[in-house]
Each structure stands twice: as C-alpha cells, then as structure tokens.
C-alpha cells in the first residue's frame, strides 16, 4: 500500500507540480544527508519590530506562553521566532543590557495541586533557554493581570524589584549578578513599582498618595516619603498603568484625565492633571488591560473607549481607538482607529514606532503604524489562546 501510494504521489507530482520535469532525464544529485540536533538561536538584541506576546492562557493558566514575534513579516513561519513558558499568570521583563528576560512564575508539584513554588526564571535572549532560577518566598508574588509595573530593574540593571501582593504588599529585591534575594521591603497601603532613579522606586497608595523609597547600596532601605494625596481612589480613581516619558509618568484616570507624576530620583511629585479630550469633544476614557504606552519620539498612547467615561465597570472593557498625545503641548496628535476592538497594546522602540494591539474578538494581534495610524497587518494562528499582554522588544 505504501508503494502504491508513492506511485500516486510521483504521478501527481510529475504531472502537476513539476510539469517540465521528467525523472528519466539526467536527474540532479540527491539531497545530502542532513545533520540532526541543530537548535536555532536568536540575536542578543532583538530588532525593534520584534514583540513579546504574553499569552497568559486564561483557560490553561499553568501553560502560559510568551511568543517572540517578528511583526514585520507576512507569514506565521517568518513571524514566530520562538517561545518560552510562563506559568500561572506570571509577569515578565526584558532587560536588554543583560541579554535576559526575567520571568516570575508559580508551579505546583502536581500541576494544580501539591507544593507551591514561586520562582524568578531568567531566560537568555539568544538561546531562549533558562540560565538561572531564583527561588522566591512562596505565596508572596503578585498574581493577577499582567502589568508593566510589577517588575522593574534598578541599580544599573543589577537588581530586579518584584512587586508582591499576598494581599499585604511589599517589594523584593533580587541581585541579578548573584542570583539571590537581597531584601524585601514592606510598602503597606501601597502597590506596584514605578522607576524613580537607579536607587529608588515609587508606589501608588490607596489613600491617593505616592510612596517613594530610596535604597542603600546593599539594598536596605535608606528612606521613604509620601507625597500629598493627588487623587481619590473611591470617587476619582487613576489607573495604575501610566505612560512614561523620561522622568514623568502619565497616569490616566477612569474619567479621561491624565495625572503627571515627576519621578526624578527624588520623592515622587504629582503635578496638575489635564484632560485627554477637549471641551466639546466626545468624553472618551481609557479602558482595557494594556492601556498605556509611549514611543521614542516622546509621545504617549492610551487605549480609549467611547462609552467608558462615567460608566461604572467599563474601565477594563478595552477600546475602539488608540489616542496619541504630545505630553508637552497636551495635544492629541494622532487617533488610531482599530479594525475591530483593542484590549491591550504595546509600542515598539525607535523613531518609526509600530503599535501592536490585541483584538479580543478573535484573539489575534494587529499591527498599526504609530505615525500614520494605518492598519498594517493581522497576526494570528501562531498558537495563542489569550494574548493578554504585549511588549515591544527592548
């Protein structure tokens, strides 16, 4: 039967696939024997058009995946560069100076049950293989929707700061050279990590203030200071997810304002808010998961929802457009209408920024031009289940 099948294939092939080729006429030399065991590698520095697509696999959380995707290519075969796993709603952070990607994840000895292990897995970007693991205190780490403000590099990329929520909140410092935990700093009433110079970080607090903690060279706490309250977390909440340009974090609010906060290495300094829409304009509001971004031109991006402003419960629904602002002039410089809908986006680095957006309707990702706002292409079928968070490669 095999022989018969091969004859059929040969017939079809010669007559259909290779009409001009006849086996009898002086065939070319045979294909050489190929080596086995070859594993591909990647460049240490990923090009700007590469993104990390964090598929938390909401229906199979222990099998989360992070895909490395070249968004400049047309086909899945050319787009997919590699993948690594991230288990149980973890968080990641690429640190280009180290050629490494930090990955916080959780395992149970029997998959969904048994002993719990929380670890920092360190992947090298060339081999996309784990090169080190740092055990973390079990049960401490923040386990929720992916965020940009859960992991942060400090001290010239020598330290990794990890936000914990158990639900008491703290920040764990890992020495990335020594591959060990050096300190855990309680930040009661405050959450997340906002870079604030090389030797301090800030957090946002339930009472509407910013906490700033400065560190000694050994990772111990040098000092802490709270700002004045600048928002009301009950009645006028901010999102915890700011766009960031230089020393200023731009925190969007549930009702379409922006609160700039200066993070210059000194204690965080909230500044006067300004609105994302002009008087008489439609009152949109940010909404979604990854709602915030910025580019190397100094512009800030927000995912905007036409119906979320003033409607309780709409702040995570996603949006129909991405709006781009010049934070200096406070003017909107670009609207990017999405093909269908957006849940999460990320902006690439470089002077020709591209915007990658998760379309939650079909769970594809879609690429847009950050300068023209034009739709470029849809990328899908690479194995994703729920691409909840996106990262431009660094």
């Amino acid at each position, binding site marked *: 039967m095999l022989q018969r099948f091969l004859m059929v294939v040969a017939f079809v092939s010669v007559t259909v696939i290779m009409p001009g080729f006849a086996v009898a006429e002086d065939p070319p030399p045979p294909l050489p024997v190929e080596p086995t065991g070859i594993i591909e590698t990647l460049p240490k520095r990923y090009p700007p058009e590469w993104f990390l697509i964090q598929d938390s696999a*909401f*229906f*199979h*959380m*222990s099998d989360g995946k992070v895909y490395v995707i070249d968004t400049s290519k047309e086909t899945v075969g050319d787009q997919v560069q590699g993948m690594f796993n991230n288990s*149980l*709603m973890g968080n990641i952070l690429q640190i280009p100076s180290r050629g490494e990607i930090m990955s916080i994840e*959780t395992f*149970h000895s029997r*998959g*969904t*049950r*048994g002993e*719990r292990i929380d670890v920092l897995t360190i992947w090298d970007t060339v081999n996309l293989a784990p090169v080190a693991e740092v055990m973390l205190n079990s*049960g401490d780490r*923040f*386990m*929720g*929707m992916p965020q940009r403000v859960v992991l942060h590099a400090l001290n010239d990329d020598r330290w990794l700061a990890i936000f914990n*929520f*158990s*639900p008491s*909140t703290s920040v764990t410092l890992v020495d990335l050279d020594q591959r060990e935990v050096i300190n855990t700093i309680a930040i009661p009433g*405050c*959450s*997340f990590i906002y870079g604030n110079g090389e030797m301090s970080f800030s*957090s*946002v*607090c*339930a009472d509407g203030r910013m906490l700033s903690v400065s560190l000694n060279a050994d990772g111990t706490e040098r000092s802490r200071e709270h700002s004045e309250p600048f928002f009301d*977390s*009950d009645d006028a*909440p*901010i*999102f*915890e997810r700011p766009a960031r340009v230089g020393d200023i974090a731009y925190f969007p609010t549930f009702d379409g304002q922006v609160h700039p906060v200066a993070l210059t290495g000194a204690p965080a300094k909230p500044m006067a808010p300004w609105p994302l829409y002009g008087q008489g304009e439609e009152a949109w509001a940010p909404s*979604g*998961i990854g709602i915030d971004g910025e580019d190397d031109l100094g512009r800030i991006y927000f995912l905007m929802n*036409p*119906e979320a402003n003033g409607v*309780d*419960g*709409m*702040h*995570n*629904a*996603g949006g*129909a457009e991405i709006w781009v602002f010049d934070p200096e002039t406070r003017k909107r410089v670009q609207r990017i209408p999405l093909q*269908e*809908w957006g*849940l999460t986006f990320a902006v690439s680095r470089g002077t020709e920024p591209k915007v990658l957006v998760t379309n*939650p*309707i*079909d*769970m594809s990702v879609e690429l847009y031009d950050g300068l023209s706002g034009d739709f470029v292409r849809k990328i899908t079928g690479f194995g994703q289940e*729920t691409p909840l968070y996106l990262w431009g490669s660094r």
Partner: protein
Amino acid sequence: MTAFFDRLFEKQARNLAQTSSRRGMLKKLGGVLVGASAVPLLPVARAETGAGPRKPVEQGSDTDCDYWRYCAIDGFLCSCCGGSANTCPPGTEMSPVTWIGTCHNPADGRNYVISYNDCCGKSTCGACLCQRDEGDRPPYRPDKTNDINWCLGTASASYHCSTAVVVGVAFDE
C-alpha cells in the same frame, strides 16, 4: 453583559456595533480579608431569618451573568462548573479571602453584601466566564479590586471558578 471571551465560542457576530457595549474583561475576584465564618469588614446588617409569613425572594438564573448577585463578579461561574452560586464544585477548596461587592436584589428591593469566594485547587473550569466590574478599583485598592487571583490562603493557587455568597444586607449609604 458580554464578556469578550464569549467571542471565542461564538465567533459569528463580528461587527463593532455588537462588541462596543459593556464588553467585559477577564480577571479574577478581589477584595478584603473575610474569614469563612468571620464578620465581613464592610458595613453589613445581618439578615433576619423567619421574620413573618412571606419568604425571602430572589429571581433569575444563577448560571446567567446577569444574575443580580454577580454585579461585581469576574470569573467562571461555579454554577456552571458543578457548584452553585454559593457552593464550590467537587474537589475544590473555597478561598477564605474574598472581594466583597454590594448588589441590588430587584426581587426585594434591598442591597446585599456579596462575598465572591473563589474555588481553588483545579485549573480553570472554563465555563460561563462572567465579568462585571461594577465598583472595581485597581489593585492599589485591595479591598475593591477583582483584578487579581484571590486563591489566597488556599492550599493551591490554581483558580477554578467563583461563587457569590450573600453575607448580609448592606446598610444604606
């Protein structure tokens, strides 16, 4: 109340008009620390029992995302997973740490305090994903957030589904 994840299972309707209203986002439950039998920390009046000839009333199906108790829920409904609105499916463990919502029961006109206890220890149930973010705040308000995995204080951090337990009548604000 249309969670966007429903779209994974019914991909026919794709026009923006149908997708732009009250789309939900998937997340897990949030909240304040409430022991399995502790008094909730939010203002709560314990409901009276047996107070007259009429019986307490509810209506609606606890497998519908629109069900009144689910006003602040975010997750897979345990009533679609082998549990019910207030019980966990077989073999799971109910989280003692919960996120509390205040929901209005249209059948008796009262507001109730609802405890959204997660059931933990198996991987996601996957049925009846329901997201209603009413009153939700970012995780910097742990007492009001449903953006995180509330399988805290359980043997396993694996989230399976979410319940909505009546823990009292809410005081009027």
